[in-house]
């Protein structure tokens, strides 16, 4: 229920969603393409038609002008006669004017279909009409002119040219063509393009939705997986599809979740182990205290023993909590101020500290410390590492056994080795000895007062200062722990 509410809260608004954005971007691209598709071909066709019409009309006007220039001077009768002999070439209007613009021939009035026009009677009043169009005026001033426009589904084209005889303009010819067929063709082209565009737009819309859905479905799956893992279900994994960036992202997510799951398991185990470790001495204390309280006839000697045991258990509890605190500090706090530390001096201090315990256990500690073994660390951390290792070597040794402690440098590294002749560690347990609360022999460890955290503290401390630690079996018996630190040279230490 809560997760449903969360997912509803986190629901992306439709227009802000990645899918919509992808779909919109596809659409925007296609809209631009469609606009181009609907404009460029039509404009280009129009230009082409204009050019073709200009050439055609100009040549028609030139043909007529050349026929008329044979007349030398233009009179209405002669012009009408000549023009009636010529083909109208599908033109809608032809005008022939004299140099003053007086219309001598108008195809709308004077076209007799090739027949001889009737002669004017003397009584009939002559009709004067002057073509005062820009085209005619321009032609009478000696220039060719062409004009064309496309509107209302019709191409209207006009052309005019002067009729020149011996360098003199003796008149002008004006022709006009109204082309509905080409107009209809252009209109059809426009219509077809529009229909195609509509189909393309519809297909694009569907495809952009499908593609964007395909793309964003994997992102949505990733988002879902993140939410599921966020809710604590660390076992959830994504199915990797393809080899693209999203597949890599899914792979990274799975690896991250693996690490998260491992960390979570380690944390749980640690909490469980810590609880168990704390519970054991507490249970002993409770049991001993109950025994004392419930048994009134208990003799004083036994009571003293029990109280002594309670003290031991309390001491163990203190040790465990101190170690846990040390580990927590190592996990969370940054390393203190480091300085060049002489490893030999620190080892000697740790050996001195452990010697009473070793003497009590009948274990001999031998040192072989080379001078000049300097590492960059804190005194306390290095002491803790050395002390833990030497103390372990003594604790898990036999009476009469030996512990060999050596320090030397090899190249850029300073190596500390602690070897013992003790019980040793089985081969299969060697990788686990640094895990928290891991014990090879639990009974012996507890008896020796171990917390199962000493080697964990050693590993975390060494790593914190850029070092490493390994454990290996010693021939013929016991174990060897080797710690490596980057060597700190004198001049480096001083700087």
């Amino acid at each position: 229920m809560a997760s449903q509410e969360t997912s509803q809260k986190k629901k992306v608004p439709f227009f802000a969603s990645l899918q919509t954005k992808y779909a919109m971007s596809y659409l925007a691209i296609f809209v631009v393409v469609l606009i181009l598709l609907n404009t460029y071909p039509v404009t280009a066709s129009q230009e082409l038609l204009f050019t073709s019409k200009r050439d055609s009309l100009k040549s028609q006007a030139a043909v007529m002008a050349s026929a008329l220039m044979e007349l030398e001077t233009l009179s209405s009768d002669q012009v009408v006669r000549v023009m009636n002999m010529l083909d109208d070439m599908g033109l809608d209007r032809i005008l022939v004017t004299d140099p003053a613009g007086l219309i001598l021939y108008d195809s709308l009035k004077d076209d007799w279909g090739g027949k001889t026009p009737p002669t004017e009677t003397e009584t009939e009043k002559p009709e004067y009409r002057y073509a005062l169009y820009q085209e005619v005026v321009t032609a009478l001033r000696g220039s060719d002119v062409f004009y064309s426009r496309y509107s209302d589904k019709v191409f209207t084209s006009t052309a005019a040219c002067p009729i020149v005889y011996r360098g003199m303009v003796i008149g002008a010819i004006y022709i006009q063509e109204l082309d509905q067929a080409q107009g209809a063709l252009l209109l059809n082209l426009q219509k077809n393009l529009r229909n195609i565009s509509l189909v393309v737009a519809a297909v694009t819309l569907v495809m952009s939705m499908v593609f964007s859905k395909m793309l964003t479905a994997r992102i949505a799956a990733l988002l879902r997986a993140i939410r599921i893992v966020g809710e604590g279900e660390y076992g959830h994994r994504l199915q990797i599809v393809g080899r693209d960036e999203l597949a890599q992202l899914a792979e990274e997510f799975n690896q991250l979740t693996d690490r998260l799951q491992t960390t979570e398991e380690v944390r749980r185990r640690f909490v469980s182990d810590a609880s168990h470790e704390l519970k054991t001495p507490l249970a002993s204390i409770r049991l001993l205290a109950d025994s004392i309280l419930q048994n009134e006839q208990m003799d004083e000697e036994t009571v003293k023993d029990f109280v002594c045991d309670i003290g031991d258990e309390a001491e163990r509890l203190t040790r465990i909590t101190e170690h846990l605190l040390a580990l927590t500090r190592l996990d969370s706090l940054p390393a203190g101020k480091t300085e060049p530390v002489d490893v030999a001096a620190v080892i000697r201090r740790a050996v001195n500290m452990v010697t009473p315990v070793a003497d009590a256990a009948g274990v001999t500690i031998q040192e072989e410390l080379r001078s000049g073994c300097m590492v960059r660390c804190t005194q306390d951390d290095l002491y803790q590492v050395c002390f833990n290792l030497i103390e372990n070597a003594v604790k898990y040794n036999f009476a009469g056994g030996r512990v060999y402690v050596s320090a030397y440098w090899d190249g850029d590294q300073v190596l500390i080795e602690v070897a013992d002749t003790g019980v040793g560690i089985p081969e299969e347990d060697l990788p686990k000895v640094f895990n928290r609360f891991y014990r090879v022999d639990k009974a012996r460890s507890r008896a020796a007062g171990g917390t199962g955290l000493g080697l964990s503290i050693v590993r975390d401390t060494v790593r914190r200062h850029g070092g490493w630690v390994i454990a290996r079996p010693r021939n013929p018996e016991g174990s060897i722990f080797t710690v490596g630190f980057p060597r700190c040279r004198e001049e480096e230490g001083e700087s």
Partner: protein
Amino acid sequence: MKKRRRLSLFLALLLLCASCGTKTEEADGGYLLYFTAVGSHGPALDTQPYDPGGAAPQSEGTASPDPGDLVNALLSGPTQEGLVSPFPRGVALQSWEWDPEQKGNLQVRLSEQYSGLADISLTLADYCIVLTLSQLEGVESVEILSAGHTTSYRSHQVLTAAEAVLSDRSAAAKEDVT
């Protein structure tokens, strides 16, 4: 009864509006001056409104300009962009009079410079005058004389506004049909 009264009121209002319209047109100086237009397509002549307060003063005591005012306004040239004067420099109006022999025919006498025009330039200048003057009441035709003589190479001397064809109507008619 009520309906009738309303109808008569509506008609009266319509009449009033119509009369207002006529007055406004005259007040706006409804006369146009024709000049040569600049361009490559369309009519070769275009108009600009006649401004009585402009170059040519209106005759005293008359509500509308006399032919002399309009011709003088024409000769002083256009004030609008896209228009060009078709008249040669220095042309002046000498006089104008009604033809005593032909009713409605206005005779306009211009100075000698006008005879310098020929062919299409003469036609354009002639019809700028004819179309402008034909707006005046009573003017049916115009006869233009230069230095007291008619121009012999004109096709005819008595010019009417109907003779000037300013646009190709056939195209418009055909476009309408389509």
